[in-house]
């Protein structure tokens, strides 16, 4: 091996890691984010293996009907029984499926339309941009939950409709974020350089601008998922939850038992805690992602 070859080999060892690897590294070293990851992993596993984990069916009556003081937690029923004598633990476990589904689907819905609208507005500009962005402003001016309530009453109270309604409330957030991000990238030097090479507009947007503009949206999507879970729980709590009877939705379980808070605390605490934990987990991940992706927040 010649000297030159040896030098080249050495240079390779000293190569800095890639941009993505750097961000991943920072993310993995963020303790809070790791806690969030573990929490969410556990929740996902619980959701996937719910039928194996839960000792009973969600609708199965395993104890006495007791409207005034349902049975509290015991070694047999870890989270006690509800007023219809159903095993609360099983219901909370199956509730994880619903909440994660709701979070994923509504964010996916909002993200899809938000991305399209934001990209169109950011790239084409002029009156298209004005039209889209003013519409987004109007949507943002209405509090998300209020908007969701309105949409639910418009669309109906099925689970799918609720997910769509909550998804719609997240559209303007994504659209605005992507538009801003695209505006910043659009004027950047590398875009100018690509244009000087004759790269056509659509390719410029999809290949050059979008990948650079998407980072903030990853963070926002994680956080939006937490908000979606809360929103759906909130809707259920307000009595606008999924109309399907017996659906073990955490927010609905809270709402059904809020009046029994003093007699049967366990019926409120466990679903409530489940909501808090899942939202906390997502928020920790979201914050961790933001810190690792955005160099300005690095300490």
């Amino acid at each position, binding site marked *: 091996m010649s000297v030159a070859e040896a030098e080249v080999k050495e240079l390779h060892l000293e*190569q800095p890691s890639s*941009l993505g690897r750097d961000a991943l590294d920072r993310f993995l070293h963020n303790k809070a984010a790791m806690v969030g990851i573990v929490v969410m992993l556990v929740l996902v596993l619980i959701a996937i293996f719910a039928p194996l984990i839960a000792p009973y069916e969600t609708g199965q009556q395993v104890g006495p009907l007791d409207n005034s003081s349902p049975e509290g937690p015991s070694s047999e029923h870890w989270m006690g029984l509800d007023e219809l004598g159903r095993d609360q633990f099983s219901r909370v476990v199956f509730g994880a499926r619903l909440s994660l589904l709701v979070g994923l689907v509504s964010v996916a819905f909002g993200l899809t339309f938000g991305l399209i609208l934001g990209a169109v507005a950011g790239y084409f500009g002029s009156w298209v941009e004005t039209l889209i962005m003013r519409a987004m402003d109007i949507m943002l001016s209405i509090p998300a939950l209020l908007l969701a309530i309105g949409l639910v009453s418009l669309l109906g109270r099925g689970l799918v409709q609720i997910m769509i309604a909550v998804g719609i409330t997240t559209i303007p957030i994504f659209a605005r974020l992507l538009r801003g991000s695209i505006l910043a990238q659009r004027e950047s030097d*590398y875009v*100018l350089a690509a*244009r000087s090479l*004759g790269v056509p507009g659509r390719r410029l947007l999809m290949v050059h601008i979008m*990948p650079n503009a998407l980072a903030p949206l990853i963070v926002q999507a994680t956080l939006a998922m937490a908000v979606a879970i809360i929103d759906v729980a909130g809707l259920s709590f307000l009595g606008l939850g999924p109309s399907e009877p017996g659906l073990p939705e955490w927010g609905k379980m809270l709402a059904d038992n809020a009046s029994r808070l003093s007699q049967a605390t366990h019926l409120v605490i466990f679903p409530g805690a489940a909501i808090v934990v899942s939202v906390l987990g997502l928020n920790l991940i979201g914050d961790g992602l933001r810190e690792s992706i955005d160099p300005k927040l690095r300490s």
Partner: protein
Amino acid sequence: MTPLLSVRDLAVQFKTRKSTVRAVNGISFDLEAGETLGIVGESGCGKSVSALAMLGILPRAGRVTSGEVLFEDVDLLKLHDSQLRQIRGNDIAMIFQDPMTSLNPVLTVGRQITEALRKHLRMSKDDAHKEAVTLLERVGIPAAGDRIKDYPHQFSGGMRQRVMIAMAISCKPKILIADEPTTALDVTIQAQILEVLKQLVAEEKMALILITHDLGVVAGTCGRTNVMYAGRFVESAPTRKLFAKPRHPYTLGLLKSVPRLDAARKEKLEPIGGTPLSMTREIEGCAFAPRCIYATEESRTKTPELRRIDSDDHLVACWNPVQEEDMPHFEVVSARDEGVAG
């Protein structure tokens, strides 16, 4: 023979809500195949904007208000964007000032170099890849075959500028526009990059338009130099003549404000007094008049046009050009002329 590129009376304006900035106020020049042309001037005089306007890639607020850009007798300004895209990168390519931001951070350099090859020359993926490796080798990147898979942040500034050059020359354009290609680099790297540029331009017989504010850069690189001030050319001459006999007071001022190796120690640099006029107003008379010690009554009222002076290839836009006796003796001493490192 018609020139390769002929710019006639090109003017560019930027409209903002409050005002209109007249960035370029009617410039004209010809570029022959294989010619090297320097455009010098201070920041904001319209050098870069002229180049962007020629390629039709002005920022949104900018508009070409008059003039034509004839490339092989076709007016680029009249072409549809899709037609212009066939020319950009293929016939006319550009290198930008800041190599740190001019490469897309999420794409490998290989992907960025092959983009133009595949689009303009319709190369297959493998051919484009091979060609890209060759290009990287030609611009002096060691282990090009491996480096092609790297991302821009894994390159140093000088190396990135080499990548930019490789991208720009990938389709063997007839004209290469280099917009301050060395400004963001260390002095030693500057020299290397210029050397690479010069070599490639000579090998491929490309015409080069080198935009810079650095007189030293044009001195060693360009056959002809145009001096720009406030969106106009004020002097145009073969570089050697321009340095030897600057006839426009602004050119003289620029030359006097640069330190010289052969000057006596005690000689002081002479700055040009004042600041350039705001370009938001229509300028009456010569734009340089308020800062010019040679200015006459005529300078303040009538705008001077470029006209012949001394010889056919020396043009100056001045009512009262610098006379021989006022001229300090400048001489271009470049490494190429002397055969030694200057």
